[in-house]
């Protein structure tokens, strides 16, 4: 058996797996019946439906011929990693990680961290350019979100502001 459409096969697999997981998870809640639905009724119904749809998508991917095999292609690990990492770093710097005793460094540190790490996702990285961008974004965000909109953000590290 050859996979005729890689994209469809794996999306079908994803649908079936997620649908099955939801359906199995739903059984741990009260199902009830049509007239008195429990919290598990609708998710179970949809989970089964999604699993079936996924199976049909997979089946079609094995049977219906496509011109080029619909390859998924290589994953862009570099941008994927740096974009997600910059986002996570921003969260850690902004709010700190109380579970390991990391103090909150605040919005400005977060912006610098995010801009630098996110810029690594691009092809070229000029230190000076990214530094200027960070400064502009910091000033802009400070004025827009803190001064104008008065959002409740920790702006500076907690060990400075106390």
């Amino acid at each position, binding site marked *: 058996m050859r996979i005729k459409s890689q*994209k*469809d096969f*794996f*999306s*079908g697999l*994803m*649908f079936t797996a*997620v*649908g099955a997981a*939801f359906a199995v*998870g*739903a059984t741990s*809640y*009260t199902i009830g019946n*049509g*007239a*008195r*639905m429990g*919290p598990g009724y*609708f*998710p179970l119904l*949809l*989970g089964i*439906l*999604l699993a079936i749809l*996924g199976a*049909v*998508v997979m089946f079609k991917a094995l049977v219906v011929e496509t011109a080029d095999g*619909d390859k*998924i*292609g290589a994953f*862009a690990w*570099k*941008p*994927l990693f740096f*974009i*997600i990492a910059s*986002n*996570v770093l921003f*969260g*850690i710097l*902004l*709010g700190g990680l109380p579970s390991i005793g990391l103090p909150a460094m605040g919005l400005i540190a*977060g912006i610098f961290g*995010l*801009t630098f790490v*996110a*810029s690594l*996702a*691009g*092809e*070229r990285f000029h230190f000076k*350019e990214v530094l200027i961008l960070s400064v502009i*974004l910091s000033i802009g*965000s400070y004025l827009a*979100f803190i001064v104008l*909109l008065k*959002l*409740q*953000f920790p702006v500076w590290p907690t060990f400075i502001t106390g």
Partner: protein
Amino acid sequence: MDLINNLSLGFGVAFTVQNLIYAFIGCLLGTLIGVLPGIGPVATIAMLLPATYALPPVAALIMLAGIYYGAQYGGSTTAILVNLPGESSSVVTVIDGYQMARRGRAGPALAAAGMGSFFAGCVGTLILAAFAAPLTEVAFKFGPAEYFSLMILGLIGAVVLASGSLLKAIAMIVLGLLLGLIGTDVNSGVARFSFDIPELTDGIGFIVIAMGVFGYGEIISNLSVKEEHREVFTGKVTHLYPSAEDFKRMTPAVLRGTAIGSLLGILPGGGALLAAFAAYTIEKKTKLKPGEVPFGKGNIRGVAAPESANNAGSQTSFIPLLTLGIPPNAVMALMVGAMTIHNIQPGPQVMTSNPELFWGLIASMWIGNLMLVILNLPLIGLWIKLLTVPYRWLFPAIVLFCAIGVYSTNNNTFDIWMVAIFGVIGYLFIKLGAEPAPLLLGFILGPMMEENLRRALLLSRGDWSVFVTRPLSASLLAAAALLLVIVLTPAIKSKREEAFVED
């Protein structure tokens, strides 16, 4: 003539120099904040609400109306320019709007959205003034069974939104419905699929999914293409404003969108949203004129119709608010909050007990709408300039605004972790060729659908035939079935595929 009397009463109250200035300030603030990705109308109004406390009631409502329209249009601007739907109703605008921007036609797209909205707003205001009372009757005829069937129709309509495989689009809707169910079940209080994480008991935020899947997913996918091959914005910006041909094409679309929006807006609960989807679906069903750009590739009708429908819908959604006393969406809920602060009791009695205020509010919505056009048509040139910023500077800024936006909705870093997860999922969707727009619609409708299914079956004592024995519900389902048959019919199917051939 009630209509003229009512409107002149309203404009008499609202049309003062002072109020016009408030409308202008509100509109300006709303646009500037709404244009930031991740901050939709609800967040904008919530942030700016305290600024209106000190004003007299009519001035406050006028300023809020300005903020509302400004924020909504600002959201459409981000949707068109950077492919980020800031609120649920601009999910559809993204599809063709962003493609227009990529082809150097961001100006006409923005203008079409603005002008379509303004026209629809005018019609919506007139309808509201003329038919507020009789139209209420229609809303009363809708029971849970009808709502459920309407949502099925809406979801089937959404299938035609996806440009890829039909089956995958349906699966994405179901996946969205399931994601929407995460969180506390309102009937039993059971926290479903929350894995004992306290933040998950409130469910996943719309902003989190929209930012992760559309924002981060798109950025990662853009960056994976070598810089010289990247087609973020290919075409040169040729025109700032729509050409005569654009006008010819968008006018019928605006008219259809307005009609659909006015009708569906009357229904409480997501009327404006369904209207945007329905309008897009209908545009896609009409035949393409020779030489016209296919849908999903930057057709101006795909921007004009949903934007008009959305705006007409938000005008007529005042009808359920004022007659049944229930706010049809989160924005209206905030407006109700603002009204109560100013000692106005929303509900059926407002129209009779406080006519100046009621009609003043209607008139002020129209003024807000007008300000929007006056303010934003000249601003289009400025927004376009944004596109000339090199992508390597733009994407860190977009990532930052997304992160700040999701954090500010709950002031909780948990949302930042969630948006990271959905960023990965979004990229996976792009790699697998699964379109995210239907998923988002399913996500929004999930809880509503379950609620109405439950109520309908509770009332019928578990008898599923209730959906076909009630005439209104049956005809809605029949329409859904018909739509599905049309899409599946081979002749049309091939045409549908033809419309989406890669160029």
